[in-house]
């Protein structure tokens, strides 16, 4: 049984005056305080949150609400620029950076009356899938394995966003997803993580990692909440040239779990002997469930799936190497003094960036260098096109595609592979979706033999978020997944 709030349930409680925004905000601030060990927050906006909550209560009193969700406390990944509140990208180089502007997405949350509890920890510049690359230290997964007390990774890069929702340190949170950074941690923490179509949500004011892949999205407890949150944050933004002019829908209002007659594809390239039996079982069970609920299950092929990861690890670092050039110590952020300009650059960037960020800047610089550009960058772009056309073909036959979200459940922080390439494999099921610009959602389906959540991923065609949410809602409604982590940090 879920004893914690959702956007939907809280909206009702607030409406019926069962609870005030100030009360619920205080409650979550208390949870944050007692959950400090999880290391979810880089910045806690204690005072501001309470003031904003009071204002929300006043709006409610004067019947001047900004939306149904006015007064609900949320958490924000520390990659979204927030006016007057430190925005660090979990990097030393931005550890002193306080923007004087507000990202479009967080602006929209504010316009809906939502209360920001603070900024959530993540991998440095969103580069990582364990949250261990953060300058502020690892986030701990609220879940623990049945037979071990060892701490687990929450996934990444939106590890703080996922762990905070899972551990009731906020009602819902904002994350960003470049290669799986919303879906993978959602899968590791038993939460719902939605990556919208590229262009559905504005990137303006979000610290950029890889511009052609980055997309913001919600991490929530339920599919319904994901629909509600997407309604709030999505839409065209003229400040982002890559944002889509496609009109957005009313995802929550139009949520319809009826999937009769739908065709669901199971891509054979995602099958693997290495997949844990419990994950395979969940995948099969989910397909059966969809069939029982009236959908048709089809085997499909996405032939270039195995090339996705290598292509991604060329394109994303290439863009990152250029996007991160602005952190040079000249105008804001960390500056380490040097003898001359070059010396200052070198010292600032050497001390300001962590190892994983440096690795990707080096890779990106290398693949864009003259003489290597065609062999790497251009080739990777060609693969990207092939992957896109794989999906175009697939969606001629099916409405949605069902896959596991991750090749494993959450693993121990201490057991993170030392080989970065092993770590990159965490994103193997999620990366193709970013390359193709499609919407994808990870939903918790069951727990494995160690009582750790297994996430399944649904994918639909571009701008078919409604269909995506409908199928996800169908599964959610049928299984009523209701596992919650035991709150070990309270003991």
């Amino acid at each position, binding site marked *: 049984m879920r004893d914690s709030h959702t956007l939907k349930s809280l909206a009702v409680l607030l409406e019926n005056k069962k609870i005030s925004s100030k009360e619920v905000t205080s409650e979550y601030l208390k949870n944050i305080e007692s959950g400090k060990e999880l290391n979810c927050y880089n910045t806690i906006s204690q005072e501001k949150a309470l003031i904003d909550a009071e204002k929300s209560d006043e709006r409610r009193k004067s019947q001047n609400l900004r939306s149904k969700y006015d007064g609900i406390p949320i958490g924000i990944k520390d990659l979204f620029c927030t006016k007057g509140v430190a925005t660090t990208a979990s990097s030393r180089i931005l550890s002193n950076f306080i923007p004087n502007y507000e990202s479009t997405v967080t602006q929209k949350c504010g316009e809906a009356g939502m209360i920001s509890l603070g900024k959530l920890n993540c991998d440095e510049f969103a580069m990582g899938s364990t949250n261990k690359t953060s300058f502020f230290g690892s986030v701990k997964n609220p879940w623990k394995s049945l037979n071990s007390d060892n701490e687990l990774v929450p996934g990444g890069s939106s590890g703080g966003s996922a762990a905070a929702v899972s551990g009731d340190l906020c009602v819902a949170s904002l994350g960003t997803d470049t290669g799986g950074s919303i879906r993978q941690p959602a899968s590791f923490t038993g939460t719902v993580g939605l990556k919208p179509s590229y262009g559905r949500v504005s990137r303006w004011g*979000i*610290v950029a990692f890889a511009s*052609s892949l980055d997309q913001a999205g919600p991490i929530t407890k339920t599919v319904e909440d994901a629909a509600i949150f997407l309604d709030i944050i999505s839409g065209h933004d003229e400040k982002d*040239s*890559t944002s889509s002019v496609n009109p957005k829908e009313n995802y929550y209002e139009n949520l319809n779990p009826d999937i009769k007659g739908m065709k669901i594809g199971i891509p054979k390239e995602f099958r693997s002997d290495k997949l844990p039996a419990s994950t395979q079982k969940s995948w099969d069970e989910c397909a059966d469930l969809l069939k029982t609920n009236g959908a048709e299950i089809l085997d499909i092929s996405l032939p270039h799936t195995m090339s996705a990861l290598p292509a991604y690890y060329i394109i994303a670092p290439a863009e990152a*190497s250029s996007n991160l050039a*602005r952190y040079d110590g000249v105008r804001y952020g960390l500056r380490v003094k040097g003898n001359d300009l070059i010396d200052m650059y070198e010292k600032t960037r050497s001390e300001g960036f962590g190892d994983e960020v440096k690795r990707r800047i080096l890779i990106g*610089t290398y693949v*864009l260098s003259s003489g290597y550009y065609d062999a790497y960058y251009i080739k990777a772009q060609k693969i990207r096109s092939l992957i896109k056309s794989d999906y175009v073909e697939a969606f001629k036959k099916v409405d949605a595609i069902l896959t596991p979200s991750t090749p494993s459940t959450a693993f121990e922080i201490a057991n993170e592979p030392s080989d970065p390439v092993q770590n990159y494999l965490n994103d193997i099921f999620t990366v193709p979706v970013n390359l193709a610009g499609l919407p994808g959602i990870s939903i918790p389906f069951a727990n494995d033999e160690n009582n750790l959540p297994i996430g399944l991923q649904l994918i639909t065609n571009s701008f078919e978020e409604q269909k995506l949410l409908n199928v996800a809602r169908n599964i959610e409604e049928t299984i009523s997944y209701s596992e919650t982590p035991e709150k070990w940090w309270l003991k």
Partner: protein
Amino acid sequence: MVAQMIEGWNLVIGIEIHAQVNSKSKLFSSSPTDFGSKPNSQVSLIDAAMPGMLPVINKFCIEQAVKSGIGLNAKINKKSIFDRKNYFYQDLPQGYQISQYKDPIVGEGFVEIETENGQKKIGVERLHLEQDAGKSLHDQDPNFTFVDLNRSGIALMEIVSKPDMNSPEEAVEYVRKVRSILRYLGTCDGNMEQGSLRADVNVSVNKPGNELGTRCEIKNLNSFKFIHAAIVYEAKRQIKLIEQGESVNQETRLFNTQSGETRSMRSKEDAHDYRYFPDPDLLPLTLDDDWIKGLQDSIPELPDQIKERFINEYFLSSYDANIIVSDKATSEYFEDVVKNRNPKLVTTWVTGELFSILNKKNLIIEDSPITSKQLGELIDNIENGKISNRQAKEVLEEMCESGKGASEIIDEKGLSQISDENEIESLVDNVLNSNPENVKKYKNGKDKLFGFFVGEAMKLSKGKANPKIVNDLIKKKLSQ
């Protein structure tokens, strides 16, 4: 002179012109572009490359670039791509310049220039849009360099010529012509002193028949004089090297405006690897046919067309027409004056007296103390014989000083000529009747006295009598 200097050598010159787009706001942000504002007063979050900021293309700059392309007789590319040119420098906030590399907005075109040997076509390779960088100020503090980002993000058009020029004069003519076209179009103000238009010049030398020599690029030349001087110096330097048995290194050089020399800035080996790649923050730019057509229809008459028209309509010489159309304001001024007036007279007065006044006062024609209407009035007075050419020059000077109109000055000074035959006849009669002795002598063969009679008559008229009529009448009377 130059031809002599490089006798036996062939000069090959290609030019990249950086022309600031005439636009109120920057290429990817809404910051203003006014020249000479307080440092860092025209900087948006985008221009300063704050985290999470995204560029949004300024449609007006696109329009200006396409217009320029049309003016350069060039192919307009319906799809073009913005790339990032990556390098680190303190006045480049993003760590990259957004430019166009493989797919520029404008492709091949040409301009025609006047040379000693007649018209010559100079090929244009491409025109692309790019952002300007900020400005580093090294002289404000002993320990720090200051950065002014007002210029950061301003739209530039880079116009790349083919290596079609073979003398410094041709190079200067080419830049003049491109500048003139852009000014006619209103796409660049062409102000070279303020840096709105600057040129990078590529120079190489070779012996006729041999393959092309190694080229050097001289950066950032911001006057016609410097372009000419830099090419002359550079050509001499390269020839000297080769004649001494050394070779020319491919490098980028700077021109010292004080010494008139060029010096090495960086060699080819030190050249940056700019790691160009398409900017993922911007979608490919696509233009539709109707929009391009609309711009084509809006293009004003350009110097080549106006020149042709002036030659046909006003019978100007190619030389005069060229001088007049080289500047939009001048051709408009000329056309204002020439309407219903004698074109030859107007040409002489515009390119002669007016230009000489402007030169003396170091003024551009837009700031001329004599408006086209005023000059027209002066010329009318010459045409209807009220004043002579010589008198008109005096009047013009007076007009400059006092700002008064020509007729007003002529009346005030009583300058208007007497052309009334009856009036002049009575003057002439008066002179002849008062000098019967001299009339007698003249009639007896002393021809030289003719001038005496004319002089006396003019004196009597206080110089205002029309000399031609005076002459005619005296001749007539004395032959009776």
